[in-house]
């Protein structure tokens, strides 16, 4: 999936280059927090590992074989920031040394394969680990789902980039169906391998799996015949909590801007499935959706005649609703989690 030069036009490449540079800056800071001054050697070795493991062939059937992309694996094993950093360095070196992926397309490649894959995988993974019961098995299951979703997410990101800055006007629906269809298959393989690998690591060195921190059993001491929690040997470095609010606000603002302005420019064409359905006359008998009369039906706000403005508004409202629903679920889950131990005691 390494994009070569000339595939995405110059303005889009420049913008993704900026996005990639920003992501690298953020993850450089974050990696220092995840690994402190050991960052350079450890991240370097992990990058070398990802580079090597991409060469490990997994036979599928009848002589075909696939290999790992490694974004999800890196995110789960060493954390999202170090993961982004490692995959980006691998992509950079592949671009310069092996001419794999164009130099002007480096921004596109990093945004697509390092940023989207890793972040999606880590968010899904953490969410699932929080929700599922504690244990090794649920970590493996979460790794499976995270890797399964991360690869099609990268395909979706690529399709979006192509829709904005593709140099050939292939119907975006066709690109989407082809890319996502293929990558769902790839994602299945990636998911199986990632889950098995994470399972293998967690069986031997559970402390090395970044995503499963906090799942370890506390050390118990037997004092006068009673089991007591051992005092923490070293103060656990607390992640910067103060920045969480800033992070939330930035994320919210970014999503609103993206939903509002990018959908403003998005094509008014129907999406891939609708397009395919339309081409083949599948939708001739399709019934109107039950929500067709709702104020936000067909991604537009009713009574707003300008199609683009209406699409943008609907995007903003959609993001708002999603954030509200997501925060609600998150809040409820956290309430339950923090509530449970106090009852147990």
């Amino acid at each position: 999936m390494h994009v070569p030069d000339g595939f995405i036009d110059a303005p889009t490449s420049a913008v993704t280059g900026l996005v990639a540079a920003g992501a690298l800056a953020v993850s450089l800071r974050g990696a220092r927090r995840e690994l402190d001054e050991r960052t350079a050697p450890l991240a370097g070795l992990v990058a070398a590992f990802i580079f090597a493991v991409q060469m490990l062939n997994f036979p599928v059937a009848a002589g075909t074989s696939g290999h790992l992309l490694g974004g999800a694996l890196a995110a789960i094993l060493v954390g999202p920031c170090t993961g982004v950093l490692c995959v980006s360095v691998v992509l950079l070196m592949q671009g310069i040394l092996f001419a794999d992926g164009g130099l002007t397309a480096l921004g596109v490649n990093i945004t697509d394969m390092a940023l989207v894959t890793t972040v999606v995988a880590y968010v899904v993974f953490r969410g699932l680990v929080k929700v599922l019961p504690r244990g090794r098995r649920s970590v493996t299951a979460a790794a499976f789902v995270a890797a399964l979703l991360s690869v099609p997410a990268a395909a979706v990101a690529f399709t979006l980039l192509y829709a904005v800055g593709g140099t050939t006007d292939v119907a975006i629906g066709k690109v989407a169906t082809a890319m996502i269809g293929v990558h769902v298959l790839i994602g299945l393989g990636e998911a199986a391998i990632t889950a098995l690998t994470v399972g293998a690591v967690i069986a031997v060195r559970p402390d090395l799996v970044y995503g499963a921190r906090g799942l370890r059993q506390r050390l118990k001491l037997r004092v006068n015949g009673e089991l007591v929690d051992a005092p923490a040997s070293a103060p656990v470095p607390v992640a910067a909590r103060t920045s969480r609010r800033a992070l939330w606000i930035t994320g919210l603002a970014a999503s609103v801007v993206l939903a509002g302005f990018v959908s403003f420019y998005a094509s008014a064409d129907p999406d891939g499935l609708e397009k395919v359905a339309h081409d083949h006359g599948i939708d001739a008998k399709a019934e109107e959706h039950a929500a067709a009369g709702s104020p936000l039906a067909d991604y537009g706000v009713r009574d707003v005649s300008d199609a683009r403005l209406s699409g943008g508004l609907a995007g903003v409202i959609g993001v708002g609703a999603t954030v509200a629903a997501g925060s609600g679920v998150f809040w409820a889950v956290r309430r339950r989690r923090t509530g449970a131990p106090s009852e147990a005691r």
Partner: protein
Amino acid sequence: MGAGHAHRLYRHAHSPVHALPPHTKLAAVLAFVVVVVSTPRTAMWAFGLYAVLLACVAHQARVPASFVLRRLLIEVPFVAFAVLLPFVAQGERVDVLGLSLSVNGLWGAWNVLAKGTLGVAASVLLAATTELRELLLGLQRLRLPPLLVQIASFMIRYGDVITDEMRRMRIARESRGFEARGVRHWGVLAKSAGALFIRSYERGERVHLAMVSRGYDGSMPVIDEVTASRAQWTRALALPSSALVVCLLGWVL
């Protein structure tokens, strides 16, 4: 490791291109690719001139054509994609040898093929004339964040070690009669990958301790600062500036 510490793409020689400081070469290649990408695709002759320019550089660097052509094979997957474009793109269609092809798709395929090939050829020439260590110094000189350069240098230094470790594990598996034939054997391979991760990570910890014991404090000392004279910059930038002239002609004509 018996083959020295040069990567497989490097081609040892003493040529004017090899002698240029690495950061000038990096800047030149990047500028060249940017110019190529921003050329209008209808100016077909411009791409021919770019190819001639690259051929001149290859001649100067004493890199044989067969070497470059063999390295170009890396873009085969995208050639396959480009071949598909005329069949799936929209717009008016034209009949070629009884096949209905999209005009827009043909232009798109040409665009991807020409620009992609030139980009790959430029990168291949850069890698063939620049040693790894120099490349990293050049990146550092071009103000890439030092931490990123350090990570990249560790990846490059230990890439071969880790790959060799993986090869030894494969030999160990095979000498015990294991042969991966299908999905059923993924478990074994994934356990190898997990073991490889643990070994890499632990090696990283050992390397870090060894570095700390030698006085590492988070930044690498720069011993050999690379500098470039005005003449060297001029020579390196001759390629992108002549390409820029071609590009401007392509827009005007």
